[in-house]
């Protein structure tokens, strides 16, 4: 067995999932599994309990709400990518999804899962931030909304409490100028650096512990990206400058 030992739970409703999350110590939610299962396979994540939400019915809808696109927890990324509603109301979202891994991964991966995983080099958190969207989280205490600006707290850390389940992400209608640009060593890899533009707003990813808002006229201001084998901090700053110019050239 690759993953370390865990107890498996497959709730049939959001209420049941929330009750499990409230009562279990050290539980992780399993949605598409395209980020969590690699971590389990490497035993980098060793949760005592896995709460698999894939058996919950009616949690995979993509629908119009408040002039934007609401994406429920089990909507697969490929489904959102192909969604006519998303293309019409928030075309930035499908454009960004085409940069997320590969189609075979997107067949299983979920939009909410990417947001909850909160990898700082991933696209969707920056999209939610640039658009000023929000997520809806549920627990036995009820539902609440977490705005994008408060969702991403550190590297792979979010404002969700241990007992909360992300049930929906909401992307506002977006018809202004938009774009996403990133640079990676190989197609489908996590970005060395990237930017999302919506109107005058610019969110950067891959250059800080969370996606960050930046001034398009001075995008590197205050940034201190880390360096690794693939890119030095200076190269990442150079990419931010270049990608921003590209995004705002149109």
């Amino acid at each position: 067995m690759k993953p370390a030992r865990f107890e498996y739970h497959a709730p049939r409703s959001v209420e049941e999932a929330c009750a499990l999350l409230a009562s279990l110590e050290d539980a992780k939610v399993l949605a598409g599994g395209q980020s969590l299962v690699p971590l389990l396979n490497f035993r980098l994540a060793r949760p005592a309990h896995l709460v698999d939400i894939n058996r919950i019915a009616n949690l995979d809808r993509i629908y119009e709400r408040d002039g934007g696109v609401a994406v429920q927890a089990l909507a697969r990324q490929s489904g959102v990518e192909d969604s006519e509603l998303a293309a019409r109301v928030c075309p930035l979202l499908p454009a960004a999804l085409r940069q997320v891994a590969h189609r075979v991964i997107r067949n299983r991966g979920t939009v909410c899962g990417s947001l909850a995983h909160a990898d700082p080099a991933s696209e969707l958190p920056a999209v939610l931030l640039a658009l000023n969207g929000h997520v809806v989280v549920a627990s036995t205490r009820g539902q609440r909304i977490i705005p994008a600006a408060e969702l991403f707290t550190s590297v792979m850390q979010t404002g969700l409490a241990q007992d909360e389940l992300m049930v929906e992400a909401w992307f506002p209608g977006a018809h202004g100028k938009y774009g996403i640009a990133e640079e990676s060593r190989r197609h489908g890899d996590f970005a060395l650096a990237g930017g999302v533009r919506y109107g005058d707003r610019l969110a950067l990813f891959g250059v800080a512990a969370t996606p960050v808002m930046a001034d398009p006229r001075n995008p590197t201001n205050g940034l201190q990206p880390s360096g690794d084998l693939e890119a030095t901090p200076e190269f990442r700053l150079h990419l931010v400058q270049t990608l921003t110019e590209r995004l705002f050239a149109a």
Partner: protein
Amino acid sequence: MKVNGVVHPAPADPRRLLSDHLRHDLGLTGTHVGCEHGVCGCCTVLFDGAPVRSCLMLAVQAEGHEVTTIEGLAAPGSPLHPVQQAFHECHGLQCGFCTPGFVMSVVGLLREHPNPTEAQVDEGIAGNLCRCTGYASIRRAVIRAAELTK
């Protein structure tokens, strides 16, 4: 779960990956495992008709669903599946380790795009790694498979 049309019980241990379940419990060793963390694409199978990584799913998650592996594309002794035939004709493989994953990805690709453009071919196979061929013959095989499927 139904694998290649045959109903099988799910494994008792929820830690069993779908890829390991197919290989070790069901003996369907055509599904290869390379990286086992979702990068190489060797373990790609069809899950309810769509290609997915079997190393990134727990076998228990397939309960009540349909899985198709490379063994399910053509019965023994019968003609090859058009995608298999195209890889054969175009020499879309050398060592063959990555081939089952490529074939399953391409089956999925051609269901979505029966007449794929070059860009769609590249996008469709971008999630599969081959260390032998340099991909040129694999791209030709995809185009040939589209012709054979018509």
